[in-house]
């Protein structure tokens, strides 16, 4: 029955309700603004849980597809008299599958938690929540858009609210951080746009035979059209090189590398990571929850959706490169995280390290690794959201996140310290918590093809323990400075999201099938193409 209503659009645009209500509220009434915003984020959560319950892994997302033609720009009508229409076609196309669904859930969950965590916001609540909800629309759209330009629009739609959210509500260096965020991500999305434009103009070509005489000839931004064209051996673009529509290897490689860089910046992959450090350190913790929890995942999602699925053979050729990048990410992030004196920077580098694992999972190009990468995405999203939730509450109380100034908080803040410790354990991949599953499956998957690299990556597992314990213990254990004696432990509004996030982390850790079931057949077609034999 869910298939009868445009559930995907409903989910995506449901925060609009909140936006409308917020617009009507007076801007001084922070209490009602907060309540409205949190309620508004609950709607997409409820809807997406409903969708999850309704989702059937064997069908994939077929029942939910939504498609409306958005822009039909006719190209030269004179020169081709026999052809009924010659168009550039661009659709509002939404879809969901096993790869989008977990990330969709992640987004809605983290959004609710971040909205709750925003209680610490001190000024301009109305604008804050407006941008916040707009950001949520963008994020939700990214994971469900099935037209490259629609994807791009949603992708950019996350950029603008983020700029404001970092730049207005951040800490001291917020403007610089916002600028960096903007420029880096701008470059990323510019390259992405470049790749998309090239993609549409090569692989987006399609002819629909209407009847004997008339054809609809168009360039389409539709993901399905592009994917069919690229992966179907009988399609135009795979025709003989003499054909004008043939897509050369150079073109494929160029697009692939462009996409890799574009999403690599977002992910972030090793040399493109510096922008996110400042964002982690300077943005409001509630925003970093979103940023680290969801936005980074968009990079990996894009890489999967457009890099792996559209260019499997290029991906296969470059799997080693990707794996090496992943290992560099893991070790580089871990070593630098070990060095940081500021907890937020530790977490920033830790994100880099953990995203390396995602790269490994992707590079494995088998079901185990890909599933591992997906789980790692969701898991890291939840864990880093939780960690920054705690960071927000800590900073609110102690006024600092410098490791050197903190210590012994397990005494005055036992609950929060406990959660922090558990989150740290999840982050370092403790079995029973979600981090382990992603890590393990990614490594397991990659081990099939790249033994030595995987073994090196396992070293990262040790280093992760080193830096996580170093920083978490520096905060919670050891002697406590006098001035922290009178701190109050978590309030209910803080404790609820902490417990909720932790519950999800444990749920995935104990029973990962909640995630793997819907994803089960998400990679079938891809694996067939790759001809990777798993289980032989």
């Amino acid at each position, binding site marked *: 029955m869910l298939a009868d209503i445009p559930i995907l659009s409903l989910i995506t645009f449901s925060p609009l309700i909140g936006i409308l209500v917020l617009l009507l509220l007076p801007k001084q009434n922070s209490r009602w603004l907060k309540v409205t915003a949190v309620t508004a984020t609950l709607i997409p959560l409820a809807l997406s849980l409903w969708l999850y319950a309704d989702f059937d892994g064997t069908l994939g997302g077929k029942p939910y597809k939504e498609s409306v033609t958005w822009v039909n720009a006719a190209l030269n009508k004179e020169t081709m008299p026999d052809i009924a229409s010659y168009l550039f076609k661009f659709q509002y196309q939404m879809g969901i599958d096993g790869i989008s669904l977990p990330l969709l859930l992640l987004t809605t969950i983290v959004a609710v938690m971040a909205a709750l965590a925003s209680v610490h916001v001190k000024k301009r609540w109305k604008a804050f929540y407006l941008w916040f909800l707009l950001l949520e629309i963008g994020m939700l759209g990214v994971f469900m858009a099935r037209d490259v330009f629609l994807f791009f629009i949603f992708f950019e739609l996350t950029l603008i609210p983020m700029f404001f959210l970092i730049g207005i509500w951040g800490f001291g260096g917020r403007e610089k951080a916002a600028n960096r965020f903007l*420029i880096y991500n701008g470059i990323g999305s510019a390259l992405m746009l470049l790749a998309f434009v090239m993609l549409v103009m090569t692989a987006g070509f399609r002819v629909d035979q209407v009847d004997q005489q008339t054809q609809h000839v168009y360039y389409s931004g539709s993901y399905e059209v592009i994917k069919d064209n690229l992966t179907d051996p009988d399609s135009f673009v795979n025709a003989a090189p003499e054909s004008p529509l043939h897509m050369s290897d150079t073109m494929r490689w160029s697009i692939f590398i462009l996409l890799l860089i574009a999403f690599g910046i977002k992910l972030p992959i090793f*040399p493109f*990571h*510096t922008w996110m450090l400042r964002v982690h350190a300077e943005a409001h913790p509630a925003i970093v929850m979103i940023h680290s929890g969801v936005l980074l995942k968009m990079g990996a999602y894009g890489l999967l959706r457009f890099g792996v699925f559209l260019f499997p053979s290029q991906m296969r050729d470059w799997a080693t490169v990707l794996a090496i990048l992943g290992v560099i990410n893991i070790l*580089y992030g871990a*070593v*630098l995280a*070990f*060095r940081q004196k500021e907890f937020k920077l530790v977490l920033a580098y830790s994100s880099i390290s953990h995203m390396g694992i995602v790269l490994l999972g992707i590079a494995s190009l*088998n*079901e*185990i690794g890909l*599933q591992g990468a997906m789980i790692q995405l969701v898991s890291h999203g939840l864990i880093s959201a939780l960690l920054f939730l705690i960071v927000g509450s800590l900073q609110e109380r102690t006024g600092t996140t410098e490791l050197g100034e903190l210590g*012994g908080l*397990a*005494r005055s803040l036992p609950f929060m310290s406990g959660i922090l410790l558990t989150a740290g*354990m999840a982050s370092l991949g*403790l*079995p*029973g918590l979600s981090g*382990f*599953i992603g890590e*393990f*499956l990614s*490594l*397991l998957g990659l*081990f*099939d093809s790249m033994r030595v690299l*995987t*073994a090196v990556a*396992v*070293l990262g*597992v*040790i*280093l992760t*323990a*080193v830096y996580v*314990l*170093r920083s978490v*213990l520096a905060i*919670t*254990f*050891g*002697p*406590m400075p006098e001035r922290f004696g009178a701190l109050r432990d978590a309030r209910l509004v803080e404790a609820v999201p902490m417990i909720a996030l932790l519950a999800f982390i444990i749920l995935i850790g104990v*029973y*990962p*099938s909640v995630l*793997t*079931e819907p994803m*089960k*057949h998400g990679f*079938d077609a891809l694996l067939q193409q790759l001809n990777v034999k*798993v*289980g032989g």
Partner: protein
Amino acid sequence: METVFTQYAWLIPLFPLAAFILLTSFGRSFKGLGVMVGSAASLASLVLALLVLFERMGEGVEDYQDGFKWLDLSTIQLNIGFEVTNLSALMLVIVTIVSLLVNVYSAGYMKSDERITVFYGYIALFTFSMLGLVLADNMLALYIFWELVGVCSFLLVGFWYQKPEARAAAKKAFIVTRIGDAGLLIAILLLFWYMPNHALDFVNIQNVFNEQTGTIAAGITTLIALLIFVGAVGKSGQFPLHVWLPDAMEGPTPISALIHAATMVAAGVYLVARTFDIFQASQAAMDVVAYVGAFTAIFAATIGVAQNDIKRILAFSTVSQLGYMMMALGLGSLTGGIFHLFTHAFFKALLFLGAGSVIHAVHTQNIHEMGGLGSRMRITAWTFGIGALALSGIPPLSGFWSKDAILNTALHENPVLFGVGVVAAFFTAFYMSRLFFLVFAGRPKGEKQAHDSSWTMTLPLIILAVLAVVTGFVETPWNNTLGTWLSGGTETTHTGGGLVMVISAAVGVLGIYLGWLMYVKGTIARDAVSSRMPWLLRLLERKYYIDELYQVVFVRGLRGLGLLLQAMDDFIIDGIVRCVGGAAVLLGRGGTRLQNGQVQTYGVITLLGLVILIVAIAGRRFW
């Protein structure tokens, strides 16, 4: 035979888990809950474990395995389940007994600690994890619980979190064992990809490696075995990853007894025993296990001689005894290793709890600040003495029989290792007598009136003492019960006959005698060796400078690398970014500089631009 209780063996770990959940959720509201709930859960587990054990003792009992699909991908499945074998049944009983006793003991020991419910929660979690580890039917499940016990150990070592030493020790414990775990993880990855059908369960592993069909190449087998052993080395504190175990003594003493003596540290031995077929398929791996074990046994025993902290002495003793067990396994004697594990669990737990009782009474851990406690703490002294004698291998206490079994095998298989074992046994007896005499004999020191603790603390001591006495008789030269039961009758120990027994007992007595001479009688000066060779004492005191070495190599190395990478991050990577940004700004500034307000300059630039365009674009056609 019907296996009624075995089918429900999965319940055994669940009692403590339930206790843990209960305590974490409501513990803060009900102070007294911890003792009750924790002990009750352990008791329930113990009862069930004993029932299972009795069931296993019947004739012709099949191993029982059951499980569920944990992670179901379309191409592969990962399962989690439990398997009851004789080995695991035995381990279940060991773990639950010690756990129950420690629960009871802690009621007294931790009475005044305000976080006692948290403590009980952690113990319950640990017990759950440890039981899970024992019951796990495949490598992955084992790994999961393997990590969980590590975390519990970490939490409990760092229980008194405000002490910087506790923090450091907890961190160290976790990280060092994590190094071993990494090895184990890689072993699992290897197994997964090499085993037919990606099977990870022990039954299949056993079949594949037993058959010697060459399904898995010899080199890979050795690699897998060694990597598993790396995991065991980390967990069981074998050289070179032993460094965390002595430091782990920063935790409350009951914890040291439970985790760092009886159960968790023995998990490494258990792991090797569980995957014994892999090891047996590779002689090289067996040799490595044997030599590492033997080296650790003597290495730790020598360090134990020079330590002054009561718990650290016991810790090094634990390391040394674990080395013994490893050696036994490496020499091919599964029974020897497990037998020693079995006896060691009780007498070492006894020693730790006894030490705890002492510390509880005198509030110090330095043996030189103790003395003459024997008269004031009779129960403690007696039970501790029994434990010490058992550890020293004095017949007919349990330690004697198990050590004898190992030495027998060693003599048979590798005389060099036999020698090492004997020397280690001598040192063991020596440092134990040193410890015992310094603490319990002589004149009382300190003003405090030390006395035995309440029954909650002494009762476990007594029970353990009894166990330390009797458990050895399950496997004696005349009675092969354990060996037959464990290995299905294929293995025999005590083949060496009387000679080994005599040597073993003799070195034990010799060691004790030497200790008596030095520390009670005073015939030999205490500094007899140290005055002549101060460097030796120092070397032993500083534990062969292994910690310092690691500090320099790894910690500093990591810091240095961090510094280097940070510089790279700040200057090279960010520098390139700044350069690119700077280039754009520079280009813009160039444009702005031309913007000097002179309209004629603009005209000149226009003209120049035109000329350049013509030359560049039209020019290439004509010139």
